[in-house]
């Protein structure tokens, strides 16, 4: 029996009644193919209806179920329980305010995302009658990787700078801004590079590379951040040579 039971030690916090987070243990009978999320859903359905956690797609694409598992950021619907021993410690993602139990406050990220202008910026909008832009497979490949971010927030949780400087735009937002900068259809590089140089600057990044290591979608936000630093500097330097708008 020992091999198919695990003890989940789950961080609980209800601001209605708790002064501080506490730990609660649950004995969970687990199936060999279960992910960490399956264990949490078992607790919610069978043991304790008051546990709060987010999840939906259970196929690693909606980005809802990021948590700390045994101290490391994990997308719990993708993370096999067989990775862990008899004890599985589940806590909310680090570096975020906690709303309740395993639910973090995402509002800060939503603001940062908007700040990097993650949309196509063009001087003159193309009419739908003109058809699609031509974009070669190579041009697509240039930014494709950075468009894969599912906003799961694991990278913010792993990033040492986000922990110390809450204003830092952070890996996912920078990667998404960079994704548009690299898109052949876009003309918004100056605007975004200004954001990258401003408050929450890309230069705060300390090259720890933790973000890319935890990314469940292999986006490599560290590469995006470092390319953005270079581009932001070049853009700044060129602004003295070529007047703004002179392209």
């Amino acid at each position: 029996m020992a091999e198919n039971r695990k003890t989940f030690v789950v961080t609980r916090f209800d601001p209605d009644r708790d002064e501080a987070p506490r730990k609660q243990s649950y004995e969970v009978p687990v199936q060999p193919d279960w992910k960490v999320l399956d264990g949490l859903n078992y607790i919610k359905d069978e043991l304790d209806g008051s546990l709060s956690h987010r999840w939906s797609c259970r196929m690693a694409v909606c980005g809802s179920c990021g948590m700390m598992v045994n101290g490391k950021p994990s997308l719990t619907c993708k993370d096999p329980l067989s990775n862990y021993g008899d004890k599985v410690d589940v806590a909310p993602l680090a570096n975020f305010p906690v709303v309740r139990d395993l639910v973090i406050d995402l509002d800060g990220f939503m603001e940062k995302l908007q700040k990097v202008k993650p949309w196509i910026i063009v001087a003159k909008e193309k009419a739908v009658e003109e058809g699609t832009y031509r974009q070669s497979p190579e041009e697509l490949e240039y930014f494709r990787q950075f468009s894969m971010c599912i906003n799961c927030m694991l990278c913010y949780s792993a990033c040492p700078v986000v922990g110390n400087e809450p204003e830092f735009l952070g890996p996912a937002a920078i990667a998404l801004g960079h994704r548009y900068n690299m898109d052949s259809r876009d003309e918004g590089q100056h605007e975004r590079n200004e954001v990258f140089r401003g408050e929450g600057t890309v230069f705060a990044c300390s090259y720890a590379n933790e973000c890319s290591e935890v990314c469940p979608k292999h986006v490599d936000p560290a590469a995006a951040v470092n390319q953005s630093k270079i581009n932001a500097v070049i853009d700044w330097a060129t602004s003295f040579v070529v007047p703004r708008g002179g392209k």
Partner: protein
Amino acid sequence: MEVIRHDIVIVGGGGAGIRAAIAAVEASPDASVAMVSKVYPMRSHTVSAEGGAAAVARSDDSLEMHGYDTVKGSDFLGDQDVIQYFVEQAPKELTLLEHWGCPWSRNEDGTVATRAFGGMSTKRTWYAADKVGFHMLHSLFQHSLRFDRIVRYDEQFVTKLLVDGGAVRGVASLDVREGVVRAILGRAVILATGGAGKIFPFTTNGNIKTGDGMALAYRAGVPLKDMEFVQYHPTGLPGTGILITEATRGEGGHLKNAEGERFLVTRDYGVGTKAELGPRDMISRAIVQEIEAGRGVKGPYGEYVHLDLTHLGEAAIDKKLPMVRELAKIYAGVDPVYEPIPIRPVVHYMMGGVDTDIDGATSLPGLYAAGEVACVSLNGANRLGSNSLTECLVFGARAGREAVRYAAGTDAGGEAASRQQAEEESARLASARDARSGSEKLSQLRRELNRTMESGCGVYREQASMDETVRTLAQLKQRMSEVRLEDSSTVFNTEITAALELDNMLEVAEALAVSAAHRRESRGAHTRRDAPTRDDHNYLYHTLCYYDAAGPRLGRKDVTLGKWVPEERKY
């Protein structure tokens, strides 16, 4: 009671909801739009769609062909005026999405690439590898962030439509994080909450697909239409139900039984030379028949058949189907480059939904619906793969524009009645949150709901089991009033939201089962062993199902026919 006013209130932040929001702000110089969603928009289930979005793009294709394929796929229950409009608008909508940054896969010359899909007579499915829903949703959401007039209410659960003077005036919405109910008023309301796959035990749908918008409209007196038509996708992973896209077959994958035989080629399942690219209803039935004939493969989660991609090669799989490889490895323990993927039919999509006209308007003035929550009658009795993502755009945009037009011609209405209704909602939820005395367990009721839906309304149906399901659902609704909730917290209480969701699911399930039990013919996805043929003489109409305190009440609505006359559906 906090009362908030906007011009348009959109419930749902997935493909249809966001498209409607963008259309609304573009159609009006000053309209303010509330987008109310029970999740952050990028978590919406559109994200899980994989294979593609259909629109005519190639010189060997035509609107006529897309239209006919869709009508035939619908088993002639689709409305032909709706289908005509859809195929005309589809290329424009996908082009717009391209302008907004969607990373569509490309041909060498830089034009957008298209792939083959089931029931489509040529390559007209636009794709971004096999993460099309994900890219569409994020492109739409990120594009929407540029509009200040789209005001988001994230993680807010709408529990009731506020109706006064014969028109919808807004919604009562539970702020999940804070536990308070607010009245969010608008001159028009658009439902865009998606489907209801979670009423079934085995589904591709995410946990959030609980039929909320259908239940909201239904309780407000708007009929649900064609609810008996439930799409089983042929290829889901056993156990989890995770979707393996039809694009696997579009790119050349084969379905094989335990004997290694390509049964869609060797046996007559009505799909002709289309083989694996036949429509979903027919292929799902073929798989069930193979398993029933003893040619399935036995596994821990029941019997299944094989989806074989090994002959496509690693390079093609990694380029065009990378997510399928990832999903198969993580959730089935097989690498499709080297081994076949175990699959079985899985509940995927509701053809039925809130009855709307071609504008997305419902019978309740001011209320619109678009996307899977709606039944605009594009899909009839069986939807073709890759039509639904495009549907979200075409009819989301139209509902957005029409809602703006309606709103401009209507007054904002008084506040008193809406405020009072929202206050009643607030009191109802507060007492539900403290209902710790009940004897029924939420997860147990949900399991019983799932079980009875599968046994009565599966791929193959018959009268006795459907009637049994109808009776069981009525009992489950009774028992739901005795549910015990343990969580009395006001903060992010996911037990109360789960109870609200189960309430919604029971309502939708009952409408579905009652609609199914009445239709004594086989058409599209509604397949009866005791009435195996289509009966145009008696059943060429849309089923309407009305809420009634005494139990669902049925009605009917004419199908809009046109140049395509119903004929035997053979490929």
